[in-house]
């Protein structure tokens, strides 16, 4: 079971390495969206400082959406998904491994590059820690919730739009607590409440999403 999970993570990372452009697209999208705002709203430092957490979080949300469509679609098309469903490991474990690989490829780079974007918004240096920590706790939740949607819309025509309609409303709590934690820290208050709520969201979704994904995959491949 552990061997199968490790094998899937290694496989997806290897595939991402051979298809670097897919990974770069999501990351560049994040950077470009976040960089467009200062051009649109003007370079007033106080304004930029106050919108920074929200803009960075919304950009992260959209960028993580962008790569969701490919999460199961490629495996579905070439038949490898069927083989995973018929594998020796429980489908929930397979789903968890796929989501972990997706986060490593599309979520972790966002966390790493966020401080650079924050610099562009002149976010005070002490807030960087809170921003990175909130993204580190929040982006895996985005991958987990998004994967349920991706599994449900697998093989549907116009699945991409449906996926966005299905998943974006469910991202709202993550957005509120994520951006809120940085706002709290900016106001000089403790952000630990919001961060703990994000951690709770992560624990709950990590416990339940893999089984929901497994059930959705079984339905979609019938």
């Amino acid at each position: 079971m552990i061997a199968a999970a490790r094998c899937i993570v290694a496989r997806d990372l290897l595939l991402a390495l051979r298809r670097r452009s897919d990974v770069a697209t999501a990351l560049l999208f994040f950077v470009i969206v976040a960089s467009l705002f200062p051009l649109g709203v003007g370079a007033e430092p106080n304004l930029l400082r106050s919108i920074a957490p929200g803009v960075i979080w919304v950009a992260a949300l959209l960028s993580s959406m962008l790569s969701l469509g490919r999460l199961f679609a490629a495996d579905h098309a070439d038949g490898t998904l069927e083989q995973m469903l018929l594998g020796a490991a429980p489908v929930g474990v397979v789903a968890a491994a796929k989501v972990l690989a997706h986060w490593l490829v599309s979520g972790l780079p966002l966390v790493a590059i966020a401080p650079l974007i924050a610099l562009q918004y002149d976010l005070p240096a002490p807030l960087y820690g809170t921003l990175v920590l909130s993204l580190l706790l929040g982006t895996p939740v985005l991958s987990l919730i998004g994967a349920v949607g991706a599994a449900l819309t697998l093989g549907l025509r116009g699945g991409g739009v449906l996926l966005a309609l299905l998943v974006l409303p469910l991202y709202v709590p993550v957005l509120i607590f994520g951006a809120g934690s940085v706002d709290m820290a900016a106001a000089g208050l403790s952000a630990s409440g919001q961060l703990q709520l994000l951690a709770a969201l992560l624990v709950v979704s990590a416990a339940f999403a893999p089984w929901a994904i497994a059930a959705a995959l079984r339905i979609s491949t019938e």
Partner: protein
Amino acid sequence: MLFRGLSFTLSGGELLRVAGANGSGKTSLLRILCGLITPDAGEVRWHGAPIHGLREEYARQIVYLGHAPAVKGDLTAAENLSIACTLAGLTASPEAAREALARFDLPAGEIPVRRLSQGQRRRAALARLMLAGTVPLWLLDEPFAALDRSAARLTEALIASHVAGGGAVAYTTHQEANIRAGMLRVVELG
């Protein structure tokens, strides 16, 4: 409705050919047998127990090769084979894997499968059978499609030796297959 009133038992050492015209439900029957589709009525049992309750336990007892070759275009044939074996819970030594690929005449080295031909991709998928001798039930959907003569002969020999060794094989084909097996049975659909 594709078919109704279908009932059969497949024991070890038996070869079952699912025959029928296009669209008569051969693929659907194999997908029902491996548990990817739930039938509208009726059930599939493995050693007397319904397969939907067994899940992974049953999955470990079968090899299913579908229409799609189930190989990743960006990976090499060797990588595909080793990943497929790990996921299926098969332990194959690197030598056995190399031997399997060599028998199916697949190019060694770092050539991603997407640069290979249709038939070679099919061979890369079939190489799994060489390492799956211990798995009791093989479900093969059109195993001979896109194969040349020599690969088809090799696949036939693999199926025959699996059946001779006490395994069971169910397969569909439109090609003339010449498999020597003790017990050959045919299910005709449509």
